[in-house]
């Protein structure tokens, strides 16, 4: 009797809400999977899973860097432009071999990240403004380097884009490895702990003597390098460098994946597993709507609703 009476107490409901916040995104993915298995023809095919996974890989890699930035109570709007820059650099340096091109592209991402981080850490510019400036400038630089679409004909790149190991595409393996790596950095390294402390309260971290500037710069450099890797992988998959359109609105998808995955915008907390699930959720949602012949406009509206619901669910914790 008493047990029953306790069921509806506020504590219980708070716990339920907490559970929903922490695991809601996984439940969402599960529900979408079940709905698709039940309703979508040919959903349960290897080919389909492969397509979906390959499409989600670049978004996920960008989202991993975004999760670090958001965890430090920042944001990185320049990631889409970094993807464009990396695809331009890749095309320009492919003549020297794929590895050289890859490294140059990653250095390009690191330089943009360094600029972001320096503006934020040394000058004290708000992350949204600093990365906005680099977003505008970054795509400009990408277009100066490579003014229009160019086919990428390179055996190394095409095998990276479409090859696989035991049926698992390279793209997916790389994304998974990077997710594990970033997860490890967040959970197990000093850098990860310092990053979360800074996101929790930058003044407190400063008073505690943490190397705030170094950590912040490193966060944006990592975000830049990850975005560059995503740009390279997307180029390898599409077999073309298109700095005009590659990565446009990518910052929004990445932020959505991170936020839907339960990482609060207020910083101090990062959920890498949730970010992976968030990226998958958005991809599944889009795929579901398209498979059922709903026009792209609905996908955008649905995505907007999901964002608002996710943030609304996470709101109580943010205020705490």
């Amino acid at each position, binding site marked *: 009797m008493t047990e029953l009476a306790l069921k509806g107490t506020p504590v219980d409901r708070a716990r339920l809400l907490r559970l929903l916040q922490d695991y809601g995104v996984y439940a969402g993915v599960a529900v979408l999977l079940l709905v698709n298995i039940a309703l979508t023809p040919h959903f349960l095919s290897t080919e389909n899973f492969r397509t979906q996974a390959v499409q989600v890989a670049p978004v996920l890699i960008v989202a991993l860097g975004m999760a670090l930035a958001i965890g430090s109570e920042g*944001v990185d709007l320049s990631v889409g432009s970094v993807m464009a820059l990396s695809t331009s650099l890749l095309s320009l340096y492919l003549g020297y071999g794929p590895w050289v091109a890859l490294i140059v592209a990653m250095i390009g991402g690191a330089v943009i990240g360094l600029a972001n981080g320096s*503006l934020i850490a040394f*000058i*004290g*510019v*708000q992350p*949204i*403004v*600093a990365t*906005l*400036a*680099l*977003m*505008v*400038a*970054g*795509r*400009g*630089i*990408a*277009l*100066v380097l490579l*003014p229009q679409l160019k086919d990428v004909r390179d055996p190394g790149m095409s095998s990276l884009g479409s090859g696989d190991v035991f049926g698992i595409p390279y793209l997916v393996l790389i994304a998974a490895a990077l997710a594990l790596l970033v997860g490890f950095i967040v959970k197990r390294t000093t850098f990860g702990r310092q990053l979360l402390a800074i996101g929790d309260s930058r003044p407190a971290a400063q008073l505690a003597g943490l190397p705030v500037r170094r950590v912040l710069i490193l966060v944006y450099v990592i975000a830049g390098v990850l975005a560059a890797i995503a740009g390279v992988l997307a180029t390898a998959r599409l077999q073309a460098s298109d700095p005009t359109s590659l990565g*446009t609105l990518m910052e*929004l998808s990445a*932020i*959505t994946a991170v*936020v839907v995955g339960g990482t609060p*915008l207020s910083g101090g907390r990062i959920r890498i597993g949730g970010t992976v699930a968030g990226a998958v959720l958005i991809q599944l949602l889009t795929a579901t709507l398209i498979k059922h012949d709903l*026009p*792209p*406009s*609905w*996908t*955008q*509206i649905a*995505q*907007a*609703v999901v*964002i*608002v619901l996710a*943030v*609304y669910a996470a*709101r109580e914790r*943010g*205020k705490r």
Partner: protein
Amino acid sequence: MTHTHTERPARATGDGPSPGKDTPDEAPLGASRADHLSALAQQHGALVTLLLVAIGASIGFDTFLTGDNLENMAVSSAFLAIVALGMTFVIITGGIDLSVGSLFALGGVLGAWGSQYGTLVALLLPLAVCGLIGLVNGLLIAKARLAPFIVTLAAMLAARGILLAITDEGSNTYLVDEKSFFASLGQEKLLGVGVPVWITVALFVAGAVMLRRSRFGQYVYAVGGNEDAAALMGAPVARTKIAVYTLSGLCAGLAGALNAAWLVSGVTILGTGMELEAIAAVVIGGTLLTGGFGFISGSLVGVLLLKVIQNVINQIGSLDSAYQQVVSGAFLAVVVIAQTWLGRRRRMM
């Protein structure tokens, strides 16, 4: 520089003087000359830069100071300026509105579609729909206390989705009858200057008066300066926030409709990246993204500066438009660095 006197920026804090009040001087007692200069530079740096760039351009290019070129720049600036006007209010409250680009495009398509039923519909329909979306933004931000960044991001996606839905996934373009009164709102000239420019000037005067002289304007500064203090003072924080996001939606919708009248069609692909241009203009104009400080005329200067730079780059011709983005981005970075640096100086005194 007459607007120096009509529109003096003010920082509102809980214990400070009320922003609308005519304080004799911006700088507090005992401030050194250098501090005063840095304050001036922060407020009017954009204007000085604009004048320098314009003088340089008129020396460098014979085509810059021609009536046609100036008129063209003015009309194309008008639409961004109206969007930036609403954005200024939002940013002064410490918020941000990322949905304006989509609302601009939505307003244009609704305006073009509505023009077949007369000018009134062509104007009221975009205002109603975009104002409503702005209102929803404001409600979610003020009442549900969600981050403005995320709410308006969602609205940006949703508005673009609605736009695609009503245009058969972007394949339908609605045309405006070139002889209609609505089209003349975009195309006619008054005293040699395009009607959109006059409308923009009128809106900016109204906006400046609202911000500097009305109670609502005081609340806008108070909310951005210190929300808790504003609430303690009895300012209607939630209502003010709802109002500024609604206002921003209305501005974006109106700008879109006027743009459709100018182009005599509702173009679905317009407005991408416009939110960033508008934010850049507002920030370059001296309004702080942290809220509580800013002024309308600065945003107008910011828009003009962006447009003049674009114009100069177009005139150079051999430079392609990619450089335009590099220059704009670098320019924004420089302005923000200068602002942050000067702002820190001021806070330290």
